């Protein structure tokens, strides 16, 4: 698989994590799985990128965390989207849409 991560802007990763968590609280492992599924197996986020990003957005209060047991009984740290996080996600999606629109227009213009 080509590595889209290399070009992944930091903000984009934040957005993907927030998007994944917008479907419900989840632990780090689950977030990676969910992003992969949601992207149609196109996107694989590595642990080394995920956790620093998770901690960073936790410090910005976009998500909160709590140790809980998962469905198979393992202890895992679950992340939940906060109100601020929801707002942030909306904003980032909007600006991403704008960027995508601009890029698309530019390409079609040639």
């Amino acid at each position, binding site marked *: 698989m080509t590595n889209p991560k290399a070009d992944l802007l930091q903000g984009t990763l934040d957005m993907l994590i927030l998007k994944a968590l917008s479907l419900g609280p989840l632990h780090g492992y689950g977030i990676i799985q969910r992003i992969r599924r949601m992207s149609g197996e196109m996107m694989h986020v590595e642990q080394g990128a995920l*956790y620093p990003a998770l901690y960073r957005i936790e410090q910005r209060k976009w998500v909160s965390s709590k140790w809980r047991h998962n469905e198979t009984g393992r202890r895992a740290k679950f992340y939940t989207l906060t109100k601020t996080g929801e707002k942030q996600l909306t904003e980032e999606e909007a600006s991403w849409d704008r960027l995508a629109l601009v890029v698309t227009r530019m390409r079609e213009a040639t």
Partner: protein
Amino acid sequence: MKILLDRIRALIRRDAVLHDIDDELRSHMEMAADDNRETGMSDEDADRAARTSFGNLGSIKDRAYEVRGGGFMETLLQDLRYGIRLLLKHPGFTLVAVATLAIGIGANTAIFSIVNAVLLRPFPFPQPDQIVMVSEFAGGIVSYPNFADWKDDQNLFASTSAVRSNESFNFTGGGEPERLQGRLVSASFLSTLKVQPFPGRDLVADDDRPGAIPTVLLSHAFWNRRFNADPAIVGKPIMLNNQSYTVVGVLPRDFQFDLDADVTIPIGLSADRFKTRGGDPGVHVVARLLPNATEQQAQAALNVVYARLEHEYPSSNTGRRAYLTPMHEYFVGSARQPLLILLGSVGLVLLIACANVANLLLVRASTRKREISVRVALGASRWRIIRELLTGSLLLSLIGAALGVLLALWGTAFIGRQLPASIPRLAEANVDLRVLLFALGASVLTGLLFGLAPAIQASRLNLTDTLKGGNCGSAGRRQHLNRVLVVCEVALTMTLLVGAGLLIQSFLRVMQVDPGFRSENLLTMQVSVNNPDGNQVGLFFKQLQENIRRLPGVKSVALSNGLPLAGVNHPTYFIEGKPLPKNGAEPPAIRYTVSPGYFQTMGIELVKGRVFTDQDTPTTPAVAVIDEALAQRTFPNEDPIGKRLSQSRDFSSAYEIVGIVRHVEQDDFDQRAFRPPQFYFSFNQISPDQLPGSTRRINLLVRTDVEPTSLTAAVRAEIAGLNKDQAVFNVRTMDDIVSQSVAPRRFSMMLLTVFAVAALMLASIGLYGTMSYAVAQKTSEIGLRIALGAQSQNVLRMVIGEGMKLTLIGVLLGLTASFALTRTMKSLLFGVSTTDPLTFLGITLMLAAVALFACWIPARRATKVVPLVALRYE
């Protein structure tokens, strides 16, 4: 909140955070392994696959930790480490900056510790705000019979007490006889202040009446000194003035009220001494307000009482009122202004110190320009840079504060020694928690003050300029800031110098005042009179004077009940044939009872008539000598000689005025607005047992040909030779008394002068630094000018001109500020106006001269620039 906790946890329990991350990654791995197993892998394979998918676990952990742990505290520690390393790398800079700040903060802390003790700290009594002092006459005096009329009035106060300090008692029986300071009080004295004696009991009403069994409370210090703090002393008798007093209790160690007293005795025992409704002899009155009552309410109630007294005793109480003053105001009110002025001045010194350190930092920042640029280029945020620089500044100011507090500890003790009694409560000055908080606050504030401007400046670097190595760009702006700081320094220094100059002028003028007596070669000491037999006392003193006069080196000897500079007691006087002054409107005056040799011994010149002689005896007509002030006041256009003066309105005992002498200055020489009239009675015409209580201490005055203290032992021996139980105390030369009376003035003058000189030094260093830096910056320009033919004179003029321009602006600002600020010093000045042109001009010239010198050194250096080197410098 959670983030903060997280970060603190990150700091305190770094391991715990790492552990948390570890757990999370492990659980991640296990879940991955679980999923792998589900796809049919063996346990072993599943684990391995999960692990390999992770890559380098350690590096992931590190990066995760950096995000989570690298919070506020972590960064702070990093900055601190970096700051310390920088300080150590530039020891010269560090030394200068820390020393400057230590002196600035130390001086502030020392002065604040005094302000704290004198003005801020409440008296050590419960609810001190409720305690007030009552006064009828100037000096806080109340007539005792008036007080007795309302002291138990339940509608006025919760509790009241008369206090008469500065009484003295001869303590005999057991060891060396000792002169004790005593105070007379009502039985309710301690309960008014809400203080309990321990061991022992409080005074009770039954102790406080004429004819009661004499009782006494001991001060803690006296109890320690003479009775080894033995609690068994309670209930035992001690001998005071040849009379037995039963010790009933000991006052608390920290007890303090007005003058220190070794013994506290019920005033009721000697109530017959206080029969007059006038101010002499009078008492002080302390009272505690009724619960929830305000001072205004108490004052209003007191006015009603005095209206009634006026009605009942028209001859003595017409027009008389009593006034309340909060206790704190009463005792320290007069010290407030000088202290606040000192605090303000020392604050200015700190500001100048800040400006100097800021200047140093600015110059140093220019050497770090490139380093900071690189870091900004690599992505450090501006805030991050400012924070790092500020941490460095705060580090500097905190080190300065730590040293400053040490300085303050020493300084407070030093100041305390300099000024023993003149400012109330000064002995309590020490470095307590509030003072430490003040020092901490001051250091943080100074750190921000001197650090902020340079830090912002540094972070505002024009990246490309700096990295390219150009020496222009932001240098201009930094120079600008430099100059603003120097102008401020000069202005502040100017203000301080003017203040100090005015105080020095005042002091010199005070010292030039002719006090009306000659203080040199004059030995004084106090001897008490206890013997109830007046004749014996008279004989004792007669013999004593003769014996002392025979000592080699003695020119003359005299006795007196008081000394110059001791202030006003409150006898009134009336002149036969003159309209009597209204009650309460009697002019305060001073009465001296002196031996015939007093005027000669004290060096008080006779203006007219004669002074007392040995021919004035109890059997000849009573005579009096008055001073010029009394003569001018009462006899503006006539000859006072032959007129009769009395202390009672009915002239039952009158004294014929036989002479006029020079006026003698009182207090610390400055009560020029009012020169209290003085009159003298002859010691020979009054038997000592008729002297009012406070005057039973007789001053022995010895004028000498030699150094006066060299005769102390011989004089003491003569006294002991006549009566070995005679206590002698307060042995001082008149010069000492004079110098003590101007001690507060000298003290403020000295401190302010020290501050001003420190400021001057700091400001000239600042000016020097700025000009040096300017010269260094302009090396190439100057080199070019010289290469193009500029004379060294022109260069000198250019650099000095620039420095003096800054000085001039500073001086103008400083002059303006001085005009505004010296007004607050009015009460501290003597004989000079607050805008004394001579002082203003002199200070301006002095400051300009110092500034010129500070600019001249770098200017000289500029003329030595070798063009070739300078041009290659870029």
